[in-house]
C-alpha cells in the first residue's frame, strides 16, 4: 500500500512537470502546418532544414528561411547602461518574420512569398519601442545599472542562473524571454510565467 502510494505520488509529480514542460510547437502559434501558404504541411520546414542550411547568421540552427537585411532602429534610453547594436544571432532570425519585411512563406527555395506577419506580432524595423535585445548582459552591466540582478549568480527559476538559462552567447536576445518552440506553454510563448511579473523580475531588481 505504501509502495503504491509512493508510485502514485511520483506519477502525479511527473504528470505535473509534464504539464509545465511538456508543451511543444505542435498546435502553438508557431505551428504553420495547417496554413494554406505552407503547402508542405510540415512544421519545422518554415525555419529549419536538415541539409544545405543557410549559415549566414552565426550559429544559425540549420536555417531554412530568408533572412532579413533590414536596418533596425534600436531602443534608446538615457537611463540604459547596456550597449545595444543591430539585432544579431537568433534575434535576427526571429526578426526575419517579425520585422514584417520578409514573407513568412519565403523559406526553403521559395521566394516572392506574399504572406506577411501583421498585428501585434509584427514588431517592424523600429525597435525603439521594444525591450532592447542583442546586448551583453554580465555582472559588470548589472553593477553599473544598479537595477539588474547579476546574471552569473542569480537563479533564473528555470534550473540554473540567468546567464546559463536565458542568455545566448552572454547576450539578451528575443529567446531570453520567448521560447520559439513553446516549451512551457505560456502565453506569448514566454519562457516562464509572468504572473506577479515574475519573468520581468527575473532580471530586473526593482
Amino acid at each position, binding site marked *: 500500500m505504501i509502495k503504491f502510494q509512493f508510485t502514485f505520488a511520483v506519477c502525479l509529480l511527473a504528470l505535473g512537470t509534464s504539464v509545465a514542460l511538456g508543451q511543444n510547437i505542435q498546435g502553438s502559434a508557431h505551428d504553420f502546418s495547417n496554413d494554406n501558404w505552407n503547402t508542405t504541411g510540415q512544421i519545422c520546414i518554415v525555419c529549419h532544414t536538415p541539409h544545405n542550411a543557410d549559415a549566414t547568421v552565426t550559429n544559425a540552427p540549420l536555417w531554412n528561411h530568408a533572412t532579413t537585411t533590414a536596418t533596425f532602429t534600436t531602443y534608446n*534610453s538615457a537611463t540604459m547602461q547596456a550597449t545595444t547594436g543591430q539585432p544579431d544571432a537568433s534575434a535576427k532570425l526571429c526578426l526575419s518574420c517579425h520585422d514584417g519585411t520578409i514573407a513568412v512563406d519565403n523559406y526553403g527555395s521559395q521566394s516572392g512569398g506574399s504572406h506577411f506577419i501583421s498585428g501585434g506580432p509584427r514588431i517592424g524595423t523600429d525597435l525603439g519601442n521594444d*525591450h532592447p535585445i542583442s546586448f551583453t548582459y554580465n555582472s559588470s552591466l548589472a553593477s553599473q545599472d544598479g537595477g539588474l540582478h547579476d546574471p552569473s549568480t542569480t537563479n533564473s527559476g528555470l534550473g540554473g542562473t540567468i546567464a546559463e538559462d536565458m542568455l545566448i552567447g552572454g547576450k539578451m536576445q528575443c529567446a531570453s524571454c520567448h521560447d520559439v518552440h513553446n516549451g512551457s506553454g505560456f502565453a506569448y510563448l514566454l519562457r516562464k510565467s*509572468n*504572473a506577479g*511579473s515574475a519573468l*520581468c523580475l527575473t532580471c530586473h531588481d*526593482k
Partner: protein
Amino acid sequence: MRRIFFLLLFLQTITAAAQSIVDTPHNLSANGPGSIHAGSETEICIFCHTPHNSSPCAPLWNRNNPGQNYILYQSSTIEAAPGQPDGASILCLSCHDGTIALGAVVSRDHLIEFSGGITVLPTGHANLGSDLSDDHPVSFIYNTSLAAADGELTDPATLNGPVQLDGQKVQCTACHNPHNNIYGNFLVASTHYSDLCMFCHQKNGWNGSLHRVSSASWNGSGNDPWPKSTYQTVAENGCENCHQPHGAGGAERIMRHLPEENNCLDCHAGNVAAKNIQSDLNKSYRHDVFAYTHIHDPEENAVSDIRHVECTDCHNPHVANGTDASAPVASGAIEGVKGVNSQGSAISAIQYEFEICYRCHADSPEKPGGHTSRQFYQTNVRLEFNAGNPSFHPVEASGKNGDVPSLISPLNEASIIYCTDCHASNNSSANGPHGSVYSPILKFRYETADYTSESYQAYELCYQCHDRNTIVNNQSTNFANVVHRKHIVDLQTPCNVCHDPHGVQGSSTNQSHLINFDTSVVSKSTGRQGKLEFIDSGSFTGQCYLYCHGRNHNPKRYI
C-alpha cells in the same frame, strides 16, 4: 561577536537598499500591499511598462499621455522656466493627475479592473490634479547658469548624490524613485533635516540659522505644527516647517499656508518656539500681519510702496539666529533682511536695526502718520533721527546733549539705543515690536493726554532710561526742581507735550532738547510778540513763547 554584529548591520543595509517595488504601494497588482490595487491582475510592471510597442519608447512606457494643459508653478523669485510637464514627469502624471484610469494600459485592449470600483487615482495627496501651481516646479532646465542666476542653488554639475536630473531637467524623478519606497513617498533620499532638499537648495545663511538647528518640539498645547510628519523637532523637519512640496496652501514658494504669518505662527504661538509671538500679535496695537495677504513679495522694493506688513518684512527665516548685538547693530533675529540706510538708499541686507524700520516709516509714500500734532510735523523718521539734527534720540548716532543727568547707568550721553528699546511688545520675552497694549506699540506705558497725573507708571517708558527722581525731584538744579516738576507734576503736562521723542529738524537754538510742541495743547503766546518758540540759552537755561493751560509765556525765562 563583533563580527556577527557587523554582518547583521551589513545585511540590514542590503535589505534597506534593496527594497523591491513588490513591497510598495506602486505594486498595483492584485497582490499589492497598498490600499489601491487591481482586482485580479497579478502582473506588476504592466501598469507602467510593456516589452513591446511602448509609448513613449523609453522607458518602455505602457500608458497614454494625459494630454492635459497643466497650470504651472509661478513665483516672483524663480529664475527657472518650468514648461508643460515632459520627460519622466508626464509619465508620472499619467496616473498622478487623476485623469486616466489606473488600469488603462496600452498593451491591453481592455481596462484592468481595480478592486473597490476604483478607476482613476482617488482624491488625496498623491493625486496632484492638473493644477501644478501648488507643487514644486518640474520640467525645467537646471544648469550651471540657472544656479548662478538663482544664487542659492547647487551647481548641478556637482550633483553626484541620489538626486539626478532627467537630461538637463528637474523632473519628478529628481526627488522620487517610483521603484523604491524605503524613505517613504518614494523619495530618493531622507527628508530628515531636509537632507533631500539640501542636495539642490543652498539657502544663504541657513547653516547658521536657528531654524536649522533648533531642537524645539511641540509641547502639546495649541496646534500640532507637524500633523503629517513623524519628525519631532524644528531641526528635523527643516524646510517642511514652512514649505510643502505638493499641494502647498500658499502655492507660490510652496509655502504651507497662504496667509504668510500662519507659516510662522504654526510654531511661534506658544506651542513650539520659546517666544509666543502670536500672543503679542493679538494685542491692540501691533504690526498687523493679519491685515494683509499676498501683498508682501520678497522682490519688492526696499522702500515699501504698498502698505503692508508681514513677518518676513522684518525676519529672514533662512538666516535668523540667536546672535546678540548692541545698538545700533542688528541682532541675529533680524539678520539677512533688506532695508533702507540712513541716507535713504536701499540695501539688500541690513547692518543696523533701524534700517528695517526705515523701509516703511521713512521715505515710503504710504508711511503711517504721526500720533501727535506738532509745531514741526514730520512723519519721516529717518529725517527725525538724522544725526545732523539739533536733537534726536540716539538711534543712528550718540545724542547732541552732552549733559543728561537723568540717564540711568550704564546709559550715558554716548549711548546708542534701538527703535525697539521704546517700540516693542509689552510684557513679552520677544524683543521686537510685534504688538503691545500701549500705543503706538510701546514697550511701556507712555501717557500723552493733557492733565495726566504724574506717576512712575504714567511715564514708565521714559523712566526706563531717565531717572524719575532726577527729572522731577532733583534739588541740585533749578531746572529739574522748577521746570520739570512744575510742568509734569503740578500742572500735569505729559512729557510728550514739549518733547518730540524721535527728533527735531531745525536749529540748535530753537530745536534742541527735542522741543517740538504738541499744538493740540500749546499755542502761540498772545500779545505784541505773539509766537510759539523755544529759545535755547545754554546749559539748563532758555525761554519760551507760548500759551498753555491758560498761561501766557511771552516769553517765560528759565534760569
